[in-house]
């Protein structure tokens, strides 16, 4: 009810009366009527009571008329009584002393001959929420539970729960839970049964922490007899009570498969219910029951598809939203089930934003080889739309689909067309995407950079987009003619740049650019470092300091830190770990699905209720990584189904595991951007200019610029290369591999033996892949099961992009390996072959 201002500081809005004068008027009038028995009194009282209630609703404190209201309540007029109950229920808690006044008439009404009055009085009595009045509740509640009228019993069952919340001990001492249990299992009225069940679930869950008996009782609700009893009466319950029962059944652990099929057959027609809540509760039962039966579980997905789509399109937008959230959860678990229904997720122009946004997510999730073209075409329509938020979301969706790597070719063209639309927000969103795309598919750099180079940095204002553009300027400095000059002009406006993110990117980009094109960039670098060192933002300052000192220390080290060869990002980290996802799935048909968070993240412990499956999850790794955080998974094969080994089984980590960065840990070798470069074991410098001369001269330039007169850093002479040195961070994308494999002739083909230790160590393909990686030989694809394994490896010469490709078939029972080696540079294939064999021979050795 409306807040009494005493407890709430808000001032009444000007449209509402302040109420003081009105309330005292009311008080007077009520007094006059209290004793009156004149005809028409009840009508007059009704009008007054209405005024009181209406003040209460709009937030005027009318608690001062409490005693007058109680005095006037001696009436047989039920409308008056109900208004009085409403009033009393609202103010009793804050006026415990006055509440005592009401006990009398409420207790009397509890014995009225009209069951309606008995029920209403009992409900009000239990709703007073005054602790020192509980003693007056026990008697009326006890008789209410035994009342001959179902309405009174229904109210009494809820009354027990209310009593429990006021005083748990009083409730338990009066043995009310046991009475409720008896009633639940025997009452002829379904709503009484449902209320008993709701009350018991709440009471026993709360008691369970205190008493073992209560936790046993809570378990007993999930026993077969209780569940079957409730299920057999399912059609007697109204739709809301059905939801309560179904929620319970979803937690039931079936004894065998007959059990499961019995329940599913019984509930089958619930899927045709017009109430979405009933349908979702039923679906939850089906999904939970069949978790261990893969085939049936899949059939369930097929079965629930049509009802869900119907509910999505027939309900209010709010209902569609709830349905779509659930569809999204399901589609993440089984993307194929909706892949032919993608048109259902096309946006309608008059839908609210929140529905459209979910539909776009659905479209992204269902996109696969067969429908990507249509989906992307549709999304491009939205991108040109007048509805700007949706246009932005649509562009992001196109980008996400591109990163899922279906038909990238066509998508890149579309994205580049977006840039030609010359709408600021379209350009901004697209730039961010192009950046991500380039990190995953560096082979597209040529096409993208040509278009991006035409964009005037003046038209890009949004920080994220600006940062993306700057990143590209730095990363592809050698391909973009104007890069140093664009950066220079951006640095000139350093002070006007409000986003720290942009300034950070600017520093890094100008560093990269400098290392590739020193003479053109040195002025800009000097300016940037000077501005950076003076920057008030701590991170910007620190990064400028880091770069400055690095350059001071050794330019080649700086090169390694700032400009290492990048490994293509094969998987962008999922924002959610699979544990989180499983937990959300366990909490199907709850807010967890809408918020995409398990309940412990958004509810207080005491309010988790029956949904929370376990108590404490503090140690759970929560997916905090943003999509920008990358996992450079070393095994490209995991993501490229069609590469070479079309039919080969994917390793176990192909499953949900490879979503979360933590799971790749053992085999994790590629490292996120900068830190990787800090591993200094290798010389990766590949400057376009002769390093020694230009670098030292530019170092001087910096020193002069900053006027610090530091000693010139000298570039150390590279160590004499061994016969054949391999690049441990070699990158090769699967398509190029495939292409090369087709084009190159076989240089060497031979069979070699494998040591017994090697054979024992080769239990899974991963073991060997990890080993070989340690030897700078990378795996492109692998597959097979003992005794036959097949691998495709590749390696690159350090310092030049000359590749070696190897097909290696190992038969463990014969202890043999068959090698086929192809090389860009045929002359060194012998050297590589011996290197490869020696690497292989070390496998399995301690």
């Amino acid at each position: 009810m409306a807040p009494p201002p005493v407890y709430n500081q808000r001032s009444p809005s000007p449209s509402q009366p302040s109420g003081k004068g009105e309330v005292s008027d009311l008080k007077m009038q009520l007094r006059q009527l209290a004793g009156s028995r004149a005809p028409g009194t009840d009508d007059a009282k009704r009008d007054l009571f209405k005024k009181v209630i209406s003040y209460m609703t709009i937030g005027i404190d009318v608690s001062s008329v409490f005693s007058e209201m109680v005095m006037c309540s001696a009436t047989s007029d039920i409308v008056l009584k109900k208004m009085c109950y409403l009033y009393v229920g609202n103010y009793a808690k804050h006026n415990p002393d006055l509440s005592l006044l009401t006990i009398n008439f409420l207790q009397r009404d509890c014995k009225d001959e009209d069951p309606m009055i008995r029920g209403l009085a009992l409900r009000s009595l239990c709703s007073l929420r005054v602790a020192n009045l509980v003693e007056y509740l026990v008697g009326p509640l006890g008789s209410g539970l035994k009342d001959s009228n179902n309405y009174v019993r229904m109210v009494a069952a809820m009354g027990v729960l209310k009593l429990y919340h006021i005083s748990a001990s009083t409730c338990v001492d009066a043995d009310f839970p046991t009475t409720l249990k008896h009633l639940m299992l025997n009452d002829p009225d379904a709503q009484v049964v449902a209320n008993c069940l709701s009350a018991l679930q709440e009471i026993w869950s709360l008691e369970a922490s205190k008493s073992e008996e209560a936790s046993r009782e809570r378990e007993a609700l999930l026993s077969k007899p209780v569940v079957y009893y409730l299920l057999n009466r399912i059609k007697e319950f109204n739709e809301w009570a059905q939801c309560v029962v179904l929620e319970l059944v979803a937690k039931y652990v079936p004894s065998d498969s007959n059990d499961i099929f019995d329940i599913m057959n019984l509930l089958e027609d619930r899927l045709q219910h017009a109430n979405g809540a009933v349908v979702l509760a039923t679906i939850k039962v089906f999904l939970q029951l069949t978790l261990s039966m893969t085939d049936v579980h899949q059939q369930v997905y097929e079965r629930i598809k049509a009802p869900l789509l119907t509910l999505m399109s027939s309900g209010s937008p709010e209902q569609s939203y709830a349905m779509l959230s659930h569809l999204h959860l399901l589609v993440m678990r089984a993307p194929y089930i909706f892949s032919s229904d993608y048109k259902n997720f096309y946006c309608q122009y008059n839908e609210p934003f929140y529905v459209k946004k979910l539909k776009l997510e659905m479209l992204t999730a269902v996109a696969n080889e067969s429908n990507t073209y249509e989906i992307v075409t549709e999304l491009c329509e939205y991108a040109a739309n007048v509805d700007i938020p949706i246009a932005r979301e649509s562009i992001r969706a196109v980008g996400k689909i591109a990163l899922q790597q279906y038909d990238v070719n066509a998508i890149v063209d579309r994205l580049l067309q977006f840039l030609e639309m010359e709408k600021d927000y379209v350009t901004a969103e697209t730039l961010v995407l192009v950046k991500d795309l380039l990190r995953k598919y560096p082979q597209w750099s040529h096409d993208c950079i040509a278009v991006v180079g035409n964009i005037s940095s003046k038209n890009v204002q949004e920080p994220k987009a600006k940062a993306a553009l700057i990143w590209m300027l730095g990363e592809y400095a050698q391909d973009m003619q104007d890069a140093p000059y664009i950066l220079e002009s951006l640095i000139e406006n350093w002070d006007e740049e409000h986003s720290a993110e942009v300034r950070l990117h600017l520093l890094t980009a100008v560093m990269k650019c400098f290392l590739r094109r020193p003479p053109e960039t040195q002025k800009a670098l000097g300016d940037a470092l000077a501005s950076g060192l003076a920057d008030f933002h701590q991170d910007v300052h620190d990064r400028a300091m880091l770069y400055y000192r690095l350059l001071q220390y050794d330019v080649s080290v700086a090169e390694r830190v700032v400009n290492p060869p990048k490994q293509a990002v094969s998987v962008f980290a999922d924002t959610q770990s699979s544990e989180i996802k499983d937990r959300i799935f366990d909490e199907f048909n709850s807010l967890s699905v809408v918020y995409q968070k398990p309940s412990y993240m958004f509810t207080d412990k005491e309010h988790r209720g029956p949904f929370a499956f376990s108590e404490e999850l503090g140690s759970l790794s929560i997916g905090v990584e943003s999509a920008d955080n990358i996992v450079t998974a070393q095994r490209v094969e995991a993501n490229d189904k069609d590469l070479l080994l079309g039919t080969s089984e994917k390793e176990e980590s192909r499953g949900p595991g490879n979503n979360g960065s933590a799971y790749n840990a053992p085999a994790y070798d590629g490292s996120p951007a900068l830190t990787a470069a800090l591993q200094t074991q290798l010389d990766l410098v590949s400057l376009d200019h002769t390093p020694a001369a230009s670098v030292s001269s530019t170092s001087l330039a910096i020193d002069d610029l900053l006027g610090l007169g530091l000693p010139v850093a000298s570039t150390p002479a590279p160590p004499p290369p061994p016969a054949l040195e391999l690049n441990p961070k070699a990158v090769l994308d699967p398509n190029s591999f495939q292409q090369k494999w087709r084009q190159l002739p076989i240089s060497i083909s031979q069979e070699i033996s494998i040591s017994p230790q090697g054979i024992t160590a080769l239990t899974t393909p991963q073991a060997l892949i990890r080993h070989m990686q340690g030897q700078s030989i990378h795996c492109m694809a692998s597959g097979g099961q003992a005794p036959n394994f097949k691998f495709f490896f590749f390696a690159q010469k350090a310092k030049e992009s000359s590749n070696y490709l190897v097909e290696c078939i190992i038969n463990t029972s014969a202890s043999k390996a068959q090698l086929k080696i192809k090389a860009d540079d045929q002359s060194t294939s012998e050297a590589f072959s011996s290197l490869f064999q020696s690497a292989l021979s070390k496998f399995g050795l301690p």
Partner: protein
Amino acid sequence: MISQFFVLSQRGDNIVFRDYRGDVQKGSAEIFFRKVKFWSEDAEEEAPPVFNVDGVNYFHVKVVGLLFVATMRTNTSPSLVLELLQRIARVIKDYLGVLSEDSLRKNFVLVYELLDEVIDFGYVQTTSTEVLKSYVFNEPIVVDAARLPPLGPASLFMQGSKRMPGTAITKSVVANEPGGRKREEIFVDIIEKISVTFSSSGYILTSEIDGTIQMKSYLTGNPEIRLALTDELTIGRGGRSIYDYGGSSGSGAVILDDCNFHESVHLDSFDVDRTLSLVPPDGEFPVMNYRITQEFKPPFRINTLIEEAGQLRAEVMLKIRAEFPSSITANTIVVQMPLPKYTTRVSFELEPGAIIGGSEHTLRAKLTFSQELHGNITKEAGPVSMTFTVPMYNPSRLQVKYLQIAKKSKTYNPYRWVRYVTQANSYVARI
């Protein structure tokens, strides 16, 4: 477990406010309203129907411009609460005849009576208009529907546009007729909302019908009703793709992709003779919802031509052809077309007249721009969207063959109204 329920006006005033569990702070309505308001101001986006602020979950639905809100601390089924809020709105409408801010304010005591029985301590008890009758003692103060401010044709598609249009009935289930006797009558409306997207070359890209058989009964004594539908009705597309329609199967077959039913409906003979039997509860409720993606003939064809005519000018020609029989007239038609951003002046002429079946209407407009357009003008304008209502027409051709009411006596012959209406849900032509 629902903690509070309240209804807010568009300005954020409490019209009714009921606290069920006392575990959410009293100022929640203000917190809620501020959040929703700023959501749309900050991001130009609508607040989602469910959100969480400081551990309190807020659920809301919009009905006739009012916000129906529930709060709770526990994690519960969002679809249950959202459905419940819609249902509460419907029950209130059943009792008040008209659902509006005015009628709610006049009848708030009655609404409190309802709320007391619908939810107890946060648990839903019942939303059946019928069951609730025995608990409601206030007489509704009926707001005269005719005196309501005219909402205009767009009202049907206002907030919560997916809700069925208020059928013409604005009579409370408990109020008596002026004559004192209740009129025995039953309304069955077949309402089909259609969504069609035409490509720029006029092909149908997507089409869908979301249909509802809506019933509103004022029959005393709850007689059983049998509702027979078109014989040639198939349910489920049997896994066929949505592309192989097998011609337009002219035989009048109606293929539903899927459907669902109100809980009062018995389907015992549905498989045999497509008959639904039910004892209709009081009030308005959907007997059956269905979804069709089978190809159908769209009621309107839209042709749009936009051409540059000089550097700062363009011409638009918009042609709309009604492709239904001339005995039918469509009304409340609105055609919208977003124009390029730099348009400064539009002059147009429109042939006057209502759209009757078979007719064709053309709109010609001249546009003037403040600056030169770069690129393709068709990318800057459109798509054309259309809203309309076509009474006595339904594209699915699903028919009610008969409506049989179990007779209590020979003289018992209640009024039966079976009506068809088609509405545009999302009717879009790209250019």
